[in-house]
């Protein structure tokens, strides 16, 4: 498979011609914003010819809370408690990137053990997020048992978070400068327990979901992303890897302690919804391996926070940075600008769903059967909150 996708002249980004609704031939259907098949609150405005979608428009705005604007009026430490709310299913990446960005801009380095704990935290987050996604994907194709298993099992991971960080969803743990407090006593034992169970569960999931004739029938051939589409559409993460594009920021541009962990980039070939789903299953397993590695290899002791100035009047010299991390959906990034004051000048949060749920979705939906639209949506793994911020 080619590594470089590049831009080919044959791709046409122009918007489709407006449909003549007065012809009476077509039906308009709104999917969402509260449709259970959609992860989060967004809606698709679908134009149907029979049960075939001929036009799709994504509408967002149901979750807009103006985080980027709010952050301009709060000081650096206060924003630390805001950022996690930008992506509900995966708050930890926001915490990490915000902390990492501030550390870069102010020349602070988090201590080694804190870096390990952050890595552990992010991989646990990935596991929890994939668990939820598996449930979503399965449910979107009408298999309702698997969601009961995985979403419930995710809560065991959340239990771990609760112990580790003091919170289940909004951990507020990766403070600028390090992490807030040390791992609890005997945490490794409980992590091992949960990971053992997760591995067992994934085997069961593979058996009842991935080997399921219904699932296969409905997901194979759905929503094909060709390698040629990847760069022109800004596709990243598993959506790109399933098309054979071997890119993973953890490997390509290692951050935290990923260069000290053993793993390979997983990629697929099929480029359809099934391939993407299978790739994510493998990545979930990889994630368990990474968590085990973190627990085994991290230094047993050491400082957890760098020396910090008084947060009440913490000023950061003028600067600009873009920091990114590989979240479950690919490149998640924080573009941050400081201007020497106690407040950040600009934060821009780049979530993969921004392209996956709009440009890519609108493209892939055309020609799809209305019954598969929820499945397609989930197979792109989109989180509306990160579009709107």
């Amino acid at each position, binding site marked *: 498979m080619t590594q470089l996708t590049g831009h080919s002249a044959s791709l046409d980004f122009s918007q489709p011609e407006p449909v003549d609704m007065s012809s009476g031939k077509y039906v308009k259907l709104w999917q969402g914003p509260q449709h259970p098949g959609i992860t989060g609150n967004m809606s698709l405005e679908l134009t149907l010819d029979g049960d075939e979608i001929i036009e799709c428009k994504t509408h967002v705005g149901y979750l807009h809370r103006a985080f980027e604007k709010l952050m301009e009026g*709060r000081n650096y*430490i*206060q*924003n*630390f*408690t*805001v950022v996690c709310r930008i992506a509900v299913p995966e708050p930890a990446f926001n915490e990490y990137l915000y902390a990492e960005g501030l550390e870069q801009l102010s020349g602070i380095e988090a201590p080694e053990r804190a870096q390990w704990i952050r890595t552990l935290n992010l991989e646990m987050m990935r596991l929890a997020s994939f668990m939820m996604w598996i449930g979503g994907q399965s449910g979107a194709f009408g*298999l309702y*048992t698997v969601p009961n*298993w995985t979403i*419930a*099992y995710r*809560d*065991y991971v959340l*239990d771990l978070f*609760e*112990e580790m*960080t*003091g*919170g289940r969803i*909004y951990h*507020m743990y990766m*403070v600028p400068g*390090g992490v*807030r*407090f*040390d791992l*609890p006593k005997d945490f490794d034992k409980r992590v091992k327990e949960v990971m053992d169970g997760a591995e067992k569960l994934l085997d*069961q999931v593979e*058996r*009842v979901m991935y*080997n*399921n*004739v*219904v699932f*296969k*029938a409905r997901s194979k051939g759905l929503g094909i992303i060709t390698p040629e589409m990847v760069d022109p559409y800004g596709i990243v993460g598993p959506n790109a890897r399933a098309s054979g594009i071997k890119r993973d920021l953890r490997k390509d541009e290692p951050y935290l302690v990923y260069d000290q962990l053993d793993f390979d980039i997983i990629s697929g070939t099929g480029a359809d919804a099934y391939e993407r789903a299978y790739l994510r299953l493998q990545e979930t397993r990889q994630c368990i391996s990474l968590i085990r590695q973190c627990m085994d290899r991290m230094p047993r002791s050491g*400082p*957890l*926070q760098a*020396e*910090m*100035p*008084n*947060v*009440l*009047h913490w000023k950061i010299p003028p600067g600009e940075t873009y920091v990114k991390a590989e979240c479950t959906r690919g490149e998640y990034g924080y573009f941050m600008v400081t201007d020497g004051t106690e407040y950040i000048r600009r934060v821009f949060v780049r979530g993969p769903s921004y392209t996956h749920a709009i440009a890519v979705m609108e493209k892939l939906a055309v020609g799809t059967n209305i019954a598969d639209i929820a499945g397609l949506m989930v197979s792109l793994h989109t989180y509306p909150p990160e579009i709107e911020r």
Partner: protein
Amino acid sequence: MNLKDLLSPFYVWQRAFEKPYTSMRPIEERPGSPSYRGFHINVADTCVGCGCCHTICQNDAIDMVPVEKYSGNKGDSGLRPRFDYGRCCWCALCVDMCTAGSLRLSNEYIWTSREPADFMFVAGVEEKHWQDNELGYRREKSYHLYPPRRIEMEMLSPDESIEGFDEVVKGYDVEQAKKEADRCIECGMCVATCPAHMDVPDYIKSIRDGDYDEGLRLMYRTNPFPATCGRICTRRCESVCPVGLQGDSIAIRWLKRHIVDQVDAKDYARILNDNIEENGKQVAVIGAGPGGLSAAYYLRKKGYEVSVYEAQDKAGGMLRYGVPGYRLPDSGLDKDINYIVSLGVEIRNNTRIGTDISFESLLNDYDAVFLSTGLSVPSSMRINGEDHPRVLSGLQVLADAASGRDPGIGNKVAVIGGGNVAMDASRVSRRLGADVTILYRRRISDMPADIEEIHEAQEEACTIVTQAIPVEIMDAPDEKQVIIKWGEAEMVQDPKGGRPRPVLQEDRMHEDTYDCIISAIGQGSNLDYLSKEVQEQLAIEWGRFTPGEYQHTSLEKVFVGGDVANRTADAISAIEDGHHAARGIDRFLRPEMYTELDQEIS
């Protein structure tokens, strides 16, 4: 399609008999994890109401509200945080920021109420069912939102310092001062405790901003002796600084000094820009100590013509003659005094009231008189042999040293007392080459001297003998020497409470020979310059004035302040007395300026 794919879904039945994930509430309890961020717990007795939780709360979920039970002043604002659970996001930044360490979160997360108002509550004051939970989030000891440790001050080593009268404290450089200033949390608790109510958080901010002109202006609003107080202030502000509750308090005194160090004396006039509009009235001030000169400065600013009468040949009072140069060099004191004088304050040195000019003539010649004559008479031990020529007073030794005279202490000295004068006299004696033994009747923890002074005296190899009560002074065989007889004391609890009292043990007496004995057991006032009639009209208790509002006395024209009129007897209180008297004198002499203001207030 293969058969396996068709059959594999039926595997789900295998799990039908497994234990479910869910727990059965309320039959099963599921407590939050040990570090869970649940509902707030505040130990209200430990909390000092500094308001940092309110400041850090990005949700504006914490209000500071008065709680009747806590009305105190000393390091307690009387306010307590009230939490609004309609806004709280349980980020626990308030816990991380809490200076007193009184605030934490419990691991309780279930609470219902029909009454919306219940979800706004003052934690630790209003009863809640979780308030005794031991578990829940607490700040980890190593984790701080502000640096808890003070930037260390460079000082002369004890060996270097006893070589002469060079200033022991070197002062912060700009970078050190910025770092120290950065630690301030701007709660403003210090402002209430400072006798002069200096705008401490504001001038500390000016250090962070590098705006020393502004810093100087802010200090002069309440204190015309910043160079002096920046060195020798008793700094009650630091004792209440909430940062000191779980770390070192902000070095407010050194920061004050740092500002003065950064500004050249010749720039004072430009920066402070004290434009004076003469008002044609005249005020006499008796005593050119910190109280008198503070009054003179603020009166002069209001346009009064001020004459200061001073018995000594230089202005400064105890600051010059009582505080040794290694703590407060003349250059520092003069920087303060010179600016006051530059505004047109006239100081008449070597003029003793009662001898050179009568007090009555001042009353006639001036529109008002401010008395701040201090405590200049050394207390007497009233033990046998005290009038021995080798018994010197601590004040005299200090005054001699300050004036460059040899106090003639010899090589082996006993100092009696545990106050700052005793420590100063001891350290001065060390610098004059003597071996020093300090005899004190109680314990080190009972000493009224500044703890740093005590430590520095110890470092400079002064021997402190505690629980030692002098009982008699006797002639020594060598007439240049003297013998002190003292007995050991046991500390006995006073049945009525209060501090333990020393009781002499008559079976454990000692006799030691010294070249001299320096008595530094306190000092009293000398009010001989006032006639009996005047004294009777002024409220005097235990030799000190007890002034009324605005330092006013029952004699219409007379205002009093400084050590002779307060119980705290330190420079900063005297400075405030002077400032306050200036306000009072202005109100007294120009009441028309205040009628409107007072009406507004009422």
